[in-house]
């Protein structure tokens, strides 16, 4: 009876397994193989051993992209989590239309297609006094900035964009998490005369830990893979000020035709994401 059940189970998951293999395992295997080859994507790849790995370690563009990506990912993830938590807690008034409106407005950027919203941000933050944002800040007596054209401001501007775009989704998850906390804990705290901040610190935050860890894992994965917005906003410029790892991979593969080197970088990115995810999952399980 058990053997029959297992066979039937395998039969049911076979189509999904097949599709997953074709669209995930096979490309991954090909990626690993190409990282040891020189390939023009027309003829069969030529095996060259560890040459691409040696090349990338001496490529200053790759080495430059790592700290840029780290700064982008960690800053944007933590800022968006903190903001999302704040907005969720502040708008957690059941039945309040204002609270619902606030959550709606925060969530709207998330549903706008990346290409469209990044295009609009390009216009808003155009590096000239005539751009809308510069006109706004000069109206308050501040001096205008080059934003996406300034090598010191380009990355913070992209981080700002990323936070604006993604805080809505995180807020939604936190709101769901807050609603799931049993009311009995708050009632007990009320009876004991606990204030709002101790309640938040000792009840809300600990009970939101699983949600926070979920958001952390998904945000890190998404952050490391960010490509569209950086490509549209700055294409890795000015110079290499916003050259993140995905942008480096793209330009190596399709700008200069170095498929092998791009594959090595992609494997590195995959390894980093996998490692971070496993650490976080282990931590969740431990908790």
């Amino acid at each position, binding site marked *: 009876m058990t053997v029959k059940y297992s066979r039937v189970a395998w039969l049911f998951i076979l189509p999904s397994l097949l599709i997953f293999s074709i669209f995930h395992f096979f490309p991954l295997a090909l990626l690993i193989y190409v990282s040891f080859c020189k390939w023009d994507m027309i003829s069969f790849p030529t095996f060259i051993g560890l040459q691409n790995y040696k090349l990338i370690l001496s490529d200053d563009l790759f080495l430059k992209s790592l700290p840029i990506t780290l700064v982008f990912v960690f800053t944007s993830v933590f800022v968006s989590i903190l903001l999302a938590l704040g907005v969720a807690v502040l708008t957690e008034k059941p039945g309040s239309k204002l609270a619902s409106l606030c959550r709606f407005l925060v969530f709207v950027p998330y549903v706008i297609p990346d290409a469209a919203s990044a295009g609009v941000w390009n216009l808003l933050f*155009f*590096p000239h006094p005539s751009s809308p944002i510069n006109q706004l800040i000069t109206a308050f007596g501040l001096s*205008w900035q*080059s934003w996406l*054209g*300034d*090598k010191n401001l380009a990355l913070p501007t992209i981080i700002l964009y990323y936070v604006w775009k993604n805080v809505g989704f995180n807020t939604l998850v936190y709101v769901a998490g807050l609603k799931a906390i049993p009311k009995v804990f708050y009632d007990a705290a009320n009876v004991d005369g606990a204030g709002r901040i101790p309640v938040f610190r000792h009840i809300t935050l600990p009970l939101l830990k699983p949600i926070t860890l979920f958001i952390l894992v998904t945000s890190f994965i998404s952050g490391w893979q960010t490509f569209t917005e950086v490509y549209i906003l700055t294409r890795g*410029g000015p110079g290499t000020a916003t050259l993140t790892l995905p942008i480096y991979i793209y330009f190596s593969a399709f700008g200069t*035709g170095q498929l092998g080197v791009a594959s090595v970088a992609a494997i590195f990115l995959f390894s980093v994401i996998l490692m971070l995810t496993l650490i976080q999952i282990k931590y969740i399980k431990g908790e």
Partner: protein
Amino acid sequence: MAKVPRRKFLAYTGVGIAVAVIAGAAGFYYLTQPTKLELDAWQWGAEYEAVNNALQAIVNSWNTAHPESIVKYTVFPELSETEFALKVKQSAVGGKPPILYYMVNTTILTELAAEGYVEEPPSDMLNLVKSAIDPAFHYMLNMFSPEGSIKPYAAGVTIGLSACALYYNKKLFQEVGLDPNKPPQTWDQLRDAAKALVKKDSSGKIIRVGVSVRKGGNPGGIGEKFVPYAIGNGAKILWKEGNKWYTDINQKPVIEAAQFLHDLIHVDKVDVPDHSSWGYDPWLNEQCAISGPLGVGFITNTKFSKPEMLQYLGVTNVPSPGGIKDAASFGDLNCLAVCSKATKEQKDRAWQFLKFFNQADNIKKVSNDIWNWTPYKDSINNPPFSTETAWKELNKVLSSVGRPHIVNEFGPGWNNLTAMLGSNLARAFANEITVKEALDKTYNDWTNFMQSNKFYTG
């Protein structure tokens, strides 16, 4: 078994027969139609809407007259040059290549021709094109063949000349005391003019650029727009001797040209370090006084975006240390060509379409009617190109420069060279690395890359 009432039975049978008859008639009609030959045309780039619309109008009139062999084209607006060339080659290997190319950039076509993906026009087609195009621009049809000789491959031109000139604002020239009829022609003159034209706010930030240097966006574009400066200083960029290809991309003439542009940004401070000063809009909005090198579309775009600016538009050569006698321009043209991997039938129909395209009425549609410069005799010798001031100035520049339009000398690997060059120059112009480091890296990256290119034996 339940009995079906007679009426219902007759009704169902009647409906069934009617459906069968209709389906049969439709199938018969479909099967007896002459087989449609679809001529897939792949367009790289999505610039110049008016040109695209004019081209579509020509295609529509062809398709109406020739329903048995319709042309349909697909635009690939966001692919890099390398990606597009790769796509063509992969589709050819896969057995379904495009039949026609419409390139908004000949550098891709140069590579495809050298690697055997472009069909050389038959003699009657070639004679037709050469008789229609001004002899001064015949070389623009030429590209390297797989055997290494230079042959004509383009069979239809929709717009010509890429980074061919600088465009300046005559009104701003007058405002700062410069003679609007004596634009800069040497590097020193360009530097001095840009210094007079640059405008800064009270905090010292540039709010109007004196001269714009291309330093961002598509790396291939950065490389391409730099080339006329380098060639004007005596560089050759890419050439063949015997069986070997050579580049002087890290030699003195190129270094000096790159350093000149770098210094405009960081020493003379007549341009901003970011990419915001480049293109049509900054010039139209008077945020940039001198723009380029850019193509002939600059005049067209001014006419249709801000016609009031046309009266202030001046055209001059890309400066070189020796002035106009040594000046270069980049003669990259948007053209139609036929894929060599198509079937004979497809190619024959494609040539017929191109003969149709090259008729005077159609050239007028894609050229004079929309202020779009093409190298056709009928086009450039008629209004507006023969009458409007900006076009007359452009014609003067084109006929005066010492080293015109040598794009056909660039062979295999040109796409990668410009992309690598552009990518490294962008870093040098952002002061991340020195100009020498950028060009040395370009040389090393390109020669390393070309080791596996079957056309490179250096």
